[in-house]
């Protein structure tokens, strides 16, 4: 049954009426409905849709005509009301202005307020190209992306250095720039210790220990793991040290790296010997052989942190390592092994080093192990080998749970070690994910009247969202022994199976003061002494940490050029760079 409503001398734009027609046609009990101005052409459309009525013919071009097809006459009033409501206004779309996001450089640079830092977390194949774009646009670069060829790293760092810019990374997981946490980073108190590190979790361990000891780190600059290679030549580390040296707020400079190539280590140490501020250097993996006036050489991450704090307090460095005593363990003759399952690569390296140096078993080289010997194993579950197509173990507990279970059942296992790295980027509550498994394996061992020590350490501060104390308590409640630092955990484990970590014996050695040029570009000083203004290219989750700390960030939703089509990318590159008279 067709019903006609005519609203005389009422005008609405045809689009408003078409939208309204859709709404009315969707009403329950309405077969179809159409609302249009009563023009001759529209009358034809009504008729074409099977909605022609005698009343329709009486409508003028200045009337709104509604024709409703329904079996339920009461619907006509409902339709009429709906039309009145809509025509009364307020029918506008409720989308508010969208937050500012860009999907190309031009827009990102327009939206950003004097940007000076690009965070790049796009696939490695494209990361170098975008890092170059960032540098050419005058931005420092924090490159989270990995799988960037080394020759690209050299090229980018040389280009950046020429322009007075810093490239942190590639494969840089952690950084703090003027107290703004970048990528996988803890919230650390501000302070006068400046950190430069070639390793992500190394920076996290040192800065969180510093924080828990009551001091702070305003800048922790990540260089990427290959910065101290012969080819790259520590370009980023050298520039970072100079910048921290020029910053009057920095009292102590702490440098963390794996042992680099000899000539690169010399280059870095020459620079460190040229500056007047106290310096702590940790080349993790090597035993320091000497101490010197200008540089305190540390053996472990905790030692580096403690030494930095003591120097910042104006004290002599005096590091006394600690271990946890009084753990009840009565291992049988088969139980000799320490099994460590880390999410933090540098923490795994530290454990491997200490076990190797103190237990003296012959190392068995094996892919996928940071360290392996007849009795012991240290695995970095964040290694590429374990993360193919899977989330990082700081986010996903699955692989660790599996390792905990299999190693607990292995009869040679005496001690299991694990880390829980909290902060930005990590799981919201990893302790609760791991606790049930820890409880199950410790309960099972107890029921079998077998000793099993599970040691855990939490890397974080009380300012991290996950809650440092809460994470400790959850793990402790599951039956794990909680250690304050990785150093303490590894020493405790070694002591539990009857070993002892000896601190390296060092004698004082004297060096001439270095004569390196200490000048540094103004742009680098500006980077570390102000809140950065960030363009975040890639993972949107990285913007949260930056925003929370009050810095400005523009999200650049990057997509590969030409949809990633390599042939078209080459065509574009050819056209964009073409020069010639015959264009």
């Amino acid at each position, binding site marked *: 049954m067709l019903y006609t409503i005519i609203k005389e001398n009422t005008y609405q734009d045809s689009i408003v009426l078409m939208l309204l027609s859709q709404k009315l*046609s969707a009403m329950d009990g309405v077969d179809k409905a159409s609302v249009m101005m009563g023009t001759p052409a529209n009358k034809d459309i009504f008729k074409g849709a099977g909605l022609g009525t005698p009343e329709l013919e009486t409508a003028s071009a200045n009337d709104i005509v509604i024709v409703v097809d329904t079996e339920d006459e009461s619907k006509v009033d409902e339709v009429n009301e709906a039309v009145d409501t809509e025509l009364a206004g307020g029918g506008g779309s409720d989308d508010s202005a969208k937050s500012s996001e860009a999907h*190309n450089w031009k827009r990102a640079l327009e939206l950003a307020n004097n940007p000076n830092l690009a965070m790049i977390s796009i696939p490695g194949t494209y990361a170098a190209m975008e890092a170059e774009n960032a540098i050419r646009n005058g931005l420092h670069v924090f490159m989270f992306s990995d799988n960037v060829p080394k020759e690209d790293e050299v090229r980018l760092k040389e280009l950046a250095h020429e322009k007075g810019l810093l490239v942190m990374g590639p494969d840089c997981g952690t950084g703090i720039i003027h107290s703004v946490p970048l990528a996988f980073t803890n919230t650390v108190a501000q302070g006068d210790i400046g950190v430069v590190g070639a390793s992500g979790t190394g920076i996290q361990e040192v800065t969180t220990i510093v924080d828990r000891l009551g001091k702070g780190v305003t800048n922790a600059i990540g260089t990427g793991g290959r910065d101290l290679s012969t080819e790259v030549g520590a370009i980023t580390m050298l520039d970072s040290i100079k910048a921290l040296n020029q910053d009057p707020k920095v009292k102590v400079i702490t440098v963390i790296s794996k042992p680099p190539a000899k000539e690169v280590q010399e280059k870095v140490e020459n620079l460190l010997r040229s500056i007047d501020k106290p310096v702590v250097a940790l080349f993790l993996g090597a035993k320091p052989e000497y101490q010197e006036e200008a540089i305190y050489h540390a053996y472990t991450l905790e030692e580096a942190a403690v030494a930095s704090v003591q120097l910042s307090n104006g004290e002599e460095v005096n590091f006394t390592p600690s271990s946890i005593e009084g753990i009840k363990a009565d291992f049988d003759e088969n139980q000799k092994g320490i099994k460590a399952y880390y999410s933090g690569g540098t923490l795994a390296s530290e454990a491997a080093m200490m076990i190797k140096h103190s237990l003296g078993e012959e190392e068995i080289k094996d892919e996928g192990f940071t360290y392996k010997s007849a009795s012991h194993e240290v695995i970095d579950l964040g290694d590429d080998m374990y993360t193919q197509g899977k989330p990082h173990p700081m986010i996903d507990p699955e692989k660790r749970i599996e390792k905990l279970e299999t190693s607990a059942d292995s009869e040679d296992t005496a001690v299991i070690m694990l880390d829980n790295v909290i902060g930005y980027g990590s799981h919201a509550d990893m302790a609760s994910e791991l606790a049930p498994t820890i409880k199950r394996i410790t309960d099972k061992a107890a029921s079998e009247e077998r000793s099993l020590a599970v040691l855990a350490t939490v890397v974080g501060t009380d300012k991290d969202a996950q809650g440092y104390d809460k994470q400790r308590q959850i793990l402790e409640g599951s039956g794990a022994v909680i250690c304050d630092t990785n150093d303490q955990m590894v020493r405790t484990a070694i002591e539990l199976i009857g070993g002892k970590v000896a601190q390296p014996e060092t004698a004082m050695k004297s060096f001439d003061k270095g004569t390196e040029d200490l000048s540094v570009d103004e742009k680098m000083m500006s980077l570390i002494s102000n809140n950065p203004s960030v363009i975040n290219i890639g993972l949107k989750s990285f913007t949260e940490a930056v925003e929370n700390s009050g810095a400005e960030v523009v999200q650049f939703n990057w997509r590969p*050029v030409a949809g990633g089509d390599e042939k*078209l990318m080459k065509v574009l590159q050819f*056209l964009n760079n073409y020069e010639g008279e015959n264009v």
Partner: protein
Amino acid sequence: MAYQTIDEANKAVVQKMIGSAPFLTDVVPAHTVIPELTEHVLLHAGPPIKYENMTDPMQGSCVGAILFEGWAEDEQGARELLENGKITFIPCHHVNAVGPMGGITSMNMPLVVVVNKEHGNEAYCTLNEGIGAVLRFGSYSDQVLTRLHWMKDVLGPVLSKALKTMDEGLNVNVLVAKAIAMGDEFHQRNIAASLAFLKEVAPAITSLEDVSLKDRQEVMQFLADTDQFFLNVAMATAKAMTDAARTIEHGTIVTAMCRNGENFGIRIAGMGDEWFTAPVNTPQGLYFTGYSAEDANTDIGDSAITETIGVGGMAMIAAPAVTRFVGSGGFNDALETSNNMAEITEQENPNFIIPTWDFKGAPTGIDARKVVESGILPVINTGIAHKVAGFGQIGAGTVNPPIECFEKAISAYAAKLGFEA
């Protein structure tokens, strides 16, 4: 003229578009300005197409045009001519013309003449027939044919006389500038421009002493009733601008976009007359009650020439009243659309300033490189035809060109410049 880089060539091409001085000077029978239009020749919209591949509305338009010209007695006779290859087809674009929807144009139809006084070239387009049952959507009823004859015998000559009372004709840039500030984007919405046009010609029409009062009244009534009258003027204007620009045969600026219901075709400056085609999409939009996307014809018509010069969907933000056609709808979506369009175009046209866009100019000169690079496709505002001839328009909405057109164009141009894959 030599250009060192593609950027330089592109700037020059767009400058030629923007620097155009289009004037509407006359309305004339098609054959007087397009010598190719003889008996048994029809123009059609889009890149070249065979009769058998045309969608039903375009075929219906052909029947209508044949009946209008009197080349056949009835529909059956017309179909026979068409099916037996007795009719020669030429794309409008090949003869300085453009045509809406089917774009079917025959020798005695009146065309608007837009002269680009800066460059001396001309472009042509048929007159808008209004809405409802119209030839461009494939109708060929008596009502349609009667109107076509009236347009040939009365509307065309009267407009011609009226325009000739003006020394230089009508300066179209001025009309466009006025109407864009009144909320037109010149594809979906032309009401302000149509009224501004009527305001200019009304005094001239009413004072034509050698035209009967009845004819003058009918013409005035027709113009007053036809909200989209200016669309065809805008199309001829855009064609006059882009044809001037494409005399520079360098660079990657898009100089034509058009559809024939089968394929979407684009041209870029550096590849001259060559078409780069791919199968058309079907528009997304709002439908009149009783119709849905299932009834829609595929994308059709030369009217995307308006987007080629930076108006239509490119200038979506200029027309708040039609912005709700865009996706979920609303002002912010329209803003986003135009902001996106700015990212694939060479520059703003200072002649077409958009108040609702904080007085930025229409985003002009689509760079095929930028389209491929960003994956952002031009947005075209369009009417939606019923896929069966005779039903006419069933809705309106937006449509994108297939990206393959742009990929093919830049690949061909790179090859022309010596690129080897």
